[in-house]
């Protein structure tokens, strides 16, 4: 896989976001315009705009209840937006089911881990490969050659993906019996199996100790480089966010209060007041 040595400098794009120079002329993998959603009377997200380059790592931060997870749910159409447009690779996602959004190239992990707990690690990854495999129900029940070919290829592919996190030896374990950190990694592997162009990580470092977090940071960069995909992550751990993100969006009460490079965000007084000032870190 192509590992990029040198990354081009960040330049501003019209949405007010910074993007790698090499990505500017390409269709952004994600473009959000005036996105908003109401839950009854509560305006959970309001006028959310951003663009994401093809191989960019961006962070979405903000205090608890700011609406970060809601943004992810909107991106995957788990929740239908009230207002605004979401474009994946230039295609509007409106009216599509979450499984169709996945096929458009968006994969995600969940804040509260959602694995197929009673199934094996290998099966979890192979469910991620579901749409890569091409054989019908008839071919499956009659065990025709296409069944065997597809299954053996996806077995190899699943093990290859697991080996990315050095988890190939756990292939036969029940997912629910894995240690916590491995469950988080498996969720990422399962998401990668769907061959996404955009990976959404909801608090991937939650519950991890500092050394695991450092390892995760390296892994996030490795994922971007080896799979050449964009990553949008929600995280409360500032070391991780500042360490891996090219650009950061700060959300408070459903509104973007700041956008920019980690350095800009760190020194932004609005952010410090709304977020960093209140947090213990």
């Amino acid at each position, binding site marked *: 896989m192509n590992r990029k040595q040198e990354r081009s400098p960040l330049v501003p794009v019209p949405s007010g976001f910074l993007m790698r120079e090499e990505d500017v002329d390409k269709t952004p993998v994600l473009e959000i315009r005036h996105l908003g959603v109401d839950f009854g009377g509560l305006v959970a997200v309001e006028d959310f705009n951003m663009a994401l380059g093809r191989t960019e790592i961006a962070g979405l931060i903000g205090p608890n209840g700011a609406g970060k997870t809601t943004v992810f749910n909107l991106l995957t159409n788990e929740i239908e937006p009230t207002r605004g447009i979401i474009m994946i690779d230039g295609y509007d996602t409106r009216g599509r089911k979450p499984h169709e959004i996945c096929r458009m190239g968006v994969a995600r992990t969940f804040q509260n881990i959602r694995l197929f707990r009673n199934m094996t690690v290998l099966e979890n990854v192979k469910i991620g490969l579901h749409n890569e495999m091409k054989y019908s*129900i008839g071919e499956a*029940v009659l065990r025709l050659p296409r069944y065997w070919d597809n299954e053996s290829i996806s077995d190899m592919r699943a093990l290859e993906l697991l080996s990315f996190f050095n988890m190939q030896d756990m292939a036969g374990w029940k997912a629910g019996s894995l240690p916590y950190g491995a469950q988080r990694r498996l969720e990422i592997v399962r998401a990668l199996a769907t061959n996404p162009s955009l990976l959404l990580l909801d608090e991937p470092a939650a519950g991890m100790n500092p050394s695991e977090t450092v390892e995760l940071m390296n892994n996030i960069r490795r994922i971007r480089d080896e799979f050449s995909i964009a990553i949008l992550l929600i995280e409360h751990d500032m070391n991780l966010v500042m360490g891996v993100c090219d650009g950061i969006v700060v959300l408070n009460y459903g509104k973007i209060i700041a956008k920019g490079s980690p350095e800009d965000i760190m020194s932004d007084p609005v952010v410090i007041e709304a977020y960093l000032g209140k947090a213990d870190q």
Partner: protein
Amino acid sequence: MRENRKSFFGRTILNTCLCLAFFLIVEYMIGAKILNRYYTNILNLVLIYVIAAVSLNLTCGYLGQLPLGHAGFMSIGAYTAAIITTRFSIPDLGPISGEAVLFLLATIAGGILAMVAGIVIGLPALRLKGDYLAIITLAFGEIIRVLVQNIKITGGAMGMGGIGRYTGFGWGFFWTIMVVAFTFLLVNSRHGRAIKSVREDEIAAESVGINLTYYKIVAFAGAAFFAGVSGSLFAHHICYLEPGNFGYNMSIEMLVMVVLGGLGSISGSIISATVLTIVPEVLQTFASWKMIIYSLLLVVVMIFKPSGLMGDYELSAARLVRKVFRKKEETPKLPENYTEGEETDE
């Protein structure tokens, strides 16, 4: 890794031989009158319930939904097939008995009609997240019963007689193998994994590209088809249908068989359907207390082993053979919960 072509064909040959041996032994016992009419009757009933229970396991155990109208699908299959066999006839074609061909076609037709009904009522119920299916299927079962009672072609409240006694051990065994093989081969494929992922976590499943509605319908329709088949066998076993045959109690009885045997275990369904059919037949006192005992059983199992007695464990003839011949020589590298079960026959 999970199963390769070679080991699969090996196991298929092994299981085919076992099934054939079982079939020939039972056929011989029936022919030699070792099994009298009373016992063959029970045997047929066992197979009919095994087919119904294994198919119900598809929606209950693998898909993780709670359908309460399985008897409704059996009813559709039963009446459809009975109407066809009582009104049409096919001439014998050389050695092929026309009666058998007609019964086969009628049973398939019964299954297909039940499946269509399954899709029609499943579509609105399964598009929604949550337990709408329980309510809708419950209503469906009752509607079918009332409908059957009030239309002419099914004989109304009087019932429908004159149905040929076509269901024998051969047909029962054939369809049992069909439903077991279909279920086993389906659940161990990408489609089956998708069905199981819906049970495990709907939101996660759709996030990795699983079309929830499609796979819910596939599982539900497949189950309805075999319920229809089992209904047809039932009709041609008791030869006289009345609307009360396929009531709410029957749906619950089958649910008990599946839950007791193990949600997601084909062998579990087979064993518990067998036991729960034989016991009330043999012990008449048990029969009158049946529903109370079933309810208690269900509560006890739900408290102590919610996944059923067998969980999702499968009996496997191939594994047994391997154990006997190789003993401890190769310790499994994978943890004990890694199963690659192939069905053994009864």
